[in-house]
């Protein structure tokens, strides 16, 4: 069974051989889809000159943006409203990455079947680690900006100074657990679906839909939601 992350090409960068993997190409495909959708929506809306009272497509887009904004405000509080677009964008990106197992994608390996579904980019620990590190740097950065370097450093020695290593490891554990949670969930889903499709034909009628709904859709949405909500919680509690 082949669940690995195939290498498409390699790029030589300052003498370092960087592998361009399947998940990297898939993530670029998803980025392209998102940017294309944004541009199309922008063009359609501009042609109709954003009206005062919205209808149709504008209504849908506004509803989505407002929902993401409210989600941010309800987790982080009203005064951090400006984080809305950032976490909204991250949420949409992670959601689309998790759900990309349902989309047909380019064939990286010749030995695969007729249709090849995309391997979710978030099934690669590099992607999830990247997202978690963004959250980590944001947490520490905004914590330092809000409290000052001294207070932030002192916060690590609370409540008693011998506990400092544990606090540091606790802070480092946050991005690790975030990334591995997302990685493990999506990888597990991919492996289970891949293993299931190797069964004889009578098990492939109808039941895969239910499995896809649980592992791909439900787990994907839930994990994206949890990732973004935990990021928001960490950042907002670092700023108090």
């Amino acid at each position, binding site marked *: *069974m082949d*669940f*690995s992350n195939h290498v498409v090409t390699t790029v030589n960068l300052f003498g370092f051989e960087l592998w361009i993997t399947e998940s990297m190409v898939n993530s670029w495909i998803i980025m392209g889809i998102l940017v294309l959708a944004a541009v199309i929506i922008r063009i359609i809306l501009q042609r109709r000159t954003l009206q005062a009272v919205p209808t149709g497509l504008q209504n849908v887009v506004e509803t989505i943006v407002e929902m993401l904004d409210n989600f941010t405000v*309800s*987790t982080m509080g009203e005064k951090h409203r400006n984080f809305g677009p950032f976490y909204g964008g991250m949420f949409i990106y992670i959601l689309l990455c998790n759900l990309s197992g349902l989309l047909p994608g380019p064939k990286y390996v010749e030995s695969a079947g007729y249709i090849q579904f995309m391997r979710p980019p978030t099934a690669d620990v590099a992607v999830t680690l990247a997202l978690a590190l963004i959250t980590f740097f944001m947490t520490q950065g905004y914590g330092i900006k809000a409290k000052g370097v001294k207070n932030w450093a002192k916060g690590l020695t609370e409540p008693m100074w011998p506990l400092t290593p544990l606090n540091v*490891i*606790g802070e480092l*554990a*946050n991005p*690790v*657990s975030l990334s*591995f*949670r997302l*990685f*493990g*969930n999506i*990888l*597990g889903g991919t*492996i289970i679906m891949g293993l299931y499709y190797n069964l004889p034909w009578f098990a492939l009628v109808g039941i895969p839909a239910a499995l896809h709904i649980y592992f791909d859709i439900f787990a994907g949405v*839930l*994990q994206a*939601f*949890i990732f973004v*909500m*935990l990021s928001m*919680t*960490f950042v*907002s*509690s670092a700023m108090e």
Partner: protein
Amino acid sequence: MDVQGIIDFLIGWMENVDPKALVLAFSAIGAGIAMIAGIGPGIGQGFAAGKAAEAVSKNPEEGARPATIVMLLGSAVAETSGIFSLVIAVIILFANPLVNKEGVGIVLAASALGAGLSMVAGIGPGIGQGYAAGKSAEAVGKRPKLQSMIVRTMLLGQAIAQTTGIYALIVALILLFVNVLK
């Protein structure tokens, strides 16, 4: 009967076995043992579901939906210990890093077994986070307006409870990938 004789009898045969096969054999055992950590999230999520059902029955009109949402959130976080074990098991089974490594056969085999054993620590966070999720769902059922505050506290507490699971994961990964035991 001397002890040395017994140990030789029990473990001595390992020296005559092909190291690769030894590593694979113990990897299989390690992968299986790692999944014992499924006990924890099972208990924890069951507790969360029960408490959420109770909360829904106590406050059907207003508290049903928030309680369900909080239960789902907490259960998803409680699932992570099982997911970590699954990840280690999958790595050991499909992408075994110890098979092609150079070293003493039995040490590599024991590393694989140790990685699997260390993930059994996922039982604790699984139960604890599930308990937190259940109590939070109950609290949200009682006072749905405080949902965001309660969820924030629950997530923070669960993230702290996860740390021993993270320690176990890190130790397992070190055993698998880093050449410590030379």
